[in-house]
C-alpha cells in the first residue's frame, strides 16, 4: 500500500471528490496561486482552474459567508481556514448561519459545506494563533465535527465530510501535515460518527483524537512494558456526534478511563465527553475518570512553557497509573 503524507491524503480526497462531483470547489486564503499556506492544495489550481480553486482576501467572515451562501444554492464548497484560530472572526457565520439555516428554514436549505484547517497548538505561534476549537463547535447542534489522526482517516473522513449534506467542521493540525501513513489507491470513505479502537487493552481506556492519538499510543506502549498495564486506545475520529457506544463498551471492559485532549480543562472537549459517559458507566468504574489536557492558561510563546502546558506522554502515564491505583 502506498505511504503518503497527511496533507497528500487531504489533497487526494479533495481531488477525488472534485472530479466526482462538479459542484465541489475549494476556496480560502492562499489555496490557489500560493498552492496552499501549508501546501495542502498544491497543484489544484493548475488542475481545476480558478473557477473551482478560489483565492480569497483575508476576510474570514466574508468568504465563509460566501461558502454558506453557495451551499444554500446547491454547491458543495470546501472552505480552508489557514488556522482554526481565525474562525473566531467568522464565528457568527459558522454558528449562526452554517449550523442553523437548515433548522431555521424548516429544512428548505441544506448546507453541504466543509470548513477545514489547522487546529490547536502548533509550535510557538503564540496564544492567539494556538486555539483549540474542538469544544467550541462540538457543542453546537447542527454541526458535525471531525478530527482525524492519520492520513488514512484524513482521506476517508474528508471524502465523507464533502458528501455530507450538513456543515462539517474538519479539524487538522499543522504539526501532523507531514505525518506519513498507508493509504490505498482505491477510493474509500470512512463513516462519520464512529470511533476506532486503535489498540486493544484490558486495564484502562484512553479516549483521544487528532494528534493526541500518537501520544496515547506511545504512553500505552510504555505502560505495557513498565507497569504491565494494558491500555486500550480509542481514536474518536468524530467529536460530534460522539460514538458513545464504542466508548461505553470499552470502559465496561477496562473499568477505568482517561480522556486525553489538548483543550483547556474547564468546559473543554474532554469535560464534555466525561459528562456524557458518567451516567452510563458509573457502576462500571473502579476509579473516577481521569483527564489529561492543557493547563488552564493562555498558550505561552516560550517553547518550554508551551511544551509544559500541553499533554505529554509522562502526564498520560501518570494519569493511567492513578486510575489503576499503582
Amino acid at each position: 500500500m502506498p505511504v503518503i503524507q497527511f496533507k497528500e491524503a487531504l489533497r487526494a480526497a479533495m481531488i477525488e471528490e472534485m472530479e466526482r462531483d462538479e459542484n465541489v470547489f475549494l476556496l480560502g486564503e492562499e489555496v490557489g496561486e500560493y498552492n496552499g499556506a501549508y501546501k495542502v492544495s498544491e497543484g489544484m489550481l493548475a488542475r481545476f482552474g480558478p473557477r473551482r480553486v478560489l483565492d480569497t482576501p483575508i476576510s474570514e467572515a466574508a468568504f465563509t459567508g460566501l461558502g454558506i451562501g453557495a451551499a444554500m444554492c446547491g454547491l458543495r464548497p470546501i472552505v480552508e481556514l489557514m488556522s482554526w484560530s481565525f474562525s473566531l472572526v467568522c464565528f457568527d457565520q459558522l454558528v449562526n448561519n452554517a449550523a442553523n439555516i437548515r433548522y431555521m428554514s424548516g429544512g428548505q436549505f441544506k448546507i453541504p459545506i466543509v470548513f477545514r484547517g489547522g487546529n490547536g497548538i502548533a509550535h510557538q505561534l503564540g496564544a492567539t494563533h494556538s486555539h483549540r476549537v474542538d469544544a467550541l463547535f462540538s457543542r453546537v447542534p447542527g454541526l458535525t465535527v471531525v478530527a482525524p489522526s492519520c492520513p488514512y482517516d484524513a482521506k476517508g473522513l474528508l471524502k465523507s465530510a464533502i458528501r455530507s449534506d450538513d456543515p462539517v467542521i474538519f479539524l487538522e493540525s499543522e504539526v501532523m501535515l507531514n505525518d506519513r501513513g498507508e493509504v490505498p489507491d482505491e477510493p474509500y470513505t470512512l463513516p462519520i460518527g464512529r470511533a476506532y479502537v486503535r489498540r486493544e487493552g484490558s486495564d484502562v481506556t484512553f479516549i483521544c483524537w487528532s494528534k493526541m492519538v500518537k501520544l496515547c499510543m506511545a504512553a500505552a506502549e510504555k505502560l505495557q512494558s513498565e507497569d504491565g498495564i494494558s491500555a486500550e486506545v480509542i481514536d474518536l475520529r468524530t467529536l460530534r456526534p460522539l460514538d458513545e457506544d464504542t466508548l461505553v463498551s470499552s470502559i465496561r471492559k477496562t473499568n477505568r478511563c482517561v480522556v486525553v485532549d489538548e483543550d483547556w480543562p474547564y468546559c473543554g472537549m474532554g469535560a464534555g465527553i466525561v459528562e456524557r459517559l458518567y451516567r452510563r458507566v458509573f457502576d462500571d468504574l473502579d476509579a473516577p475518570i481521569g483527564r489529561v489536557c492543557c493547563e488552564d492558561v493562555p498558550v505561552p510563546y516560550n517553547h518550554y512553557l508551551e511544551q509544559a502546558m500541553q499533554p505529554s506522554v509522562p502526564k498520560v502515564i501518570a494519569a493511567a497509573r492513578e486510575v489503576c491505583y499503582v
Partner: protein
Amino acid sequence: MPFEITMPQLSDTMTEGTVVKWHVREGDPVKPNQEIADVETDKATMPMESYEGGTLAYIAAPEGTRVKVGGLLGVVAVPGEDPAEIRKAAGADGASKPSAPVAPSGDDVKGPSEIRPAELSVRPKQAPPAGEPRERLRVSPLARRIAQEKGIDLLKVRGSGPGGRIVRKDVEEFAAAAARPAAAPAQTPPPSLPMPVPRGQSKTVPLSKMRTAIATALQRSKQMVPHFYETIDIDMEAVAALRQRMNQKLEKEQVRLSVMDFVYKATAAALLRHPRLNARFNAEKNELTQYGDVNLGIAVAIPDGLIVPVLRGIDQLGLKEIRLRSLDIFERARAQRLRREELSEATFTVSPLGNYGIRHFSAIINPPEVAILAVGSAEPRAVVRDGQVVARMTMSVTLSADHRAVDGAVAAEFLSTLRELLEEPAMMLA
C-alpha cells in the same frame, strides 16, 4: 451551610476528648479528607479528617481544650461562604457555641449501638476496616457492584484506594480469601524510657489521659464486677512441635508463628463452643448479649499504660493471618495510631505476660465483657506423667470471670475445652 466539626466518639468508652493539635489555622483552606487535627481520647491520639472542603472559619476548641463527644470543635465555611461572617456568627451566636468543659467522669459508657452517625462529623484517617456501619463507606461503583454480585459484606473489606476507597482489587482479593500479608507497618520510634527520679527527690506528675482512663475503668470494674478466678495448666508440647513444623514451612514466606498465636486461635475456637463467655453484660438492662463472632481484645503494654487493640472476627482467621494482623495492630498500638474500630467492641480479652517470664497472674475484667484470660509463659516444668517426673512444656492460664454473667462450672468447661484444643491442636479443625 457552614459545616460544624464536632468531637467524634472514637471508642466505646470515650465521653470526651482533648484537641492536642490543630493542623490548620483559622482562615486556612481545608480540603475534603485533609487531616485537620489530632484528638486525644482516653485510649490514643488519633488524626482526624474533615468530610468537607472549604475554609476553616472558626476554631471553637483551641489546642488543649477538653470537649465532650458531640461538642463543637470548629466551623468550616464551604466554598461561596464568607469565613469572616461565619466566624463572627459562631463567636456571637448561641446556636454554635463551644461546648462547656466537661466534668471528669467514667460514667455514661456508651455501647456501640448508641453511637449516632451524626456524631461522626470527622473521622479517623485511613481505611474503614471491618466493623459496624458507622460512617459512609467509600467504595468504587465497580467494587460495590462486584461485592453485590458475590455477596460480599463490604464492611469487612479494607479499602486500599485514596481515602480508604474500596476498589475492585480489594473486593477480589477478599473474595479469593488469598490472605495476602498486609504491607509491613511503618517503623515506629522505640518507646522512650521514663525519666528516673533523682535520689533524694520526688516527682509528682498529673496522670495522663490514658492513665486516668485505666484508673477509672479498672477501679470501677474491680468494685462493680464480682470476679472469680480459675487456673488451669496446659501441656504445650503438641503446640511447640506443631509450631516448629509450621514455621519451617512458613519460613519462605517470612512468617514466624508465636505460641500466643495458637493461644489466640484456640481461645477463639473455645469461645465459639462456650458463647456465654463471648459476651457482654448489661447490668442496667439485666441483659447478657452473646456473639456469634469473636472479636478478641489483646492487652498490649505501651509506655505509661496499656491498650487493648481488637482482632475482629479472629475465629475466621488462619494462624498466619492472626500473626500478620496482630503484628500490624501491635505496632500501631505502640505508635498510638489505631483506628477507632480497632479499639472497640471486643467480646473477650486475652492478657499475655508470658514474655516477661510470668508464670501465673489474674487479670481484671474489662466490662462490659464478662471474662478475661491471663496467659503465663510456656516453659519446661517438672510434671508427673505415668508415675514419672518428666520435663514438659507447660503453660498456666487464669480466667477471670464475672459471676453475674457466668458460673464456675461454665468457666471450667471453657478452660477444659481450651486445654483440649491446645493439647491436641488438630481438634481445632473439628
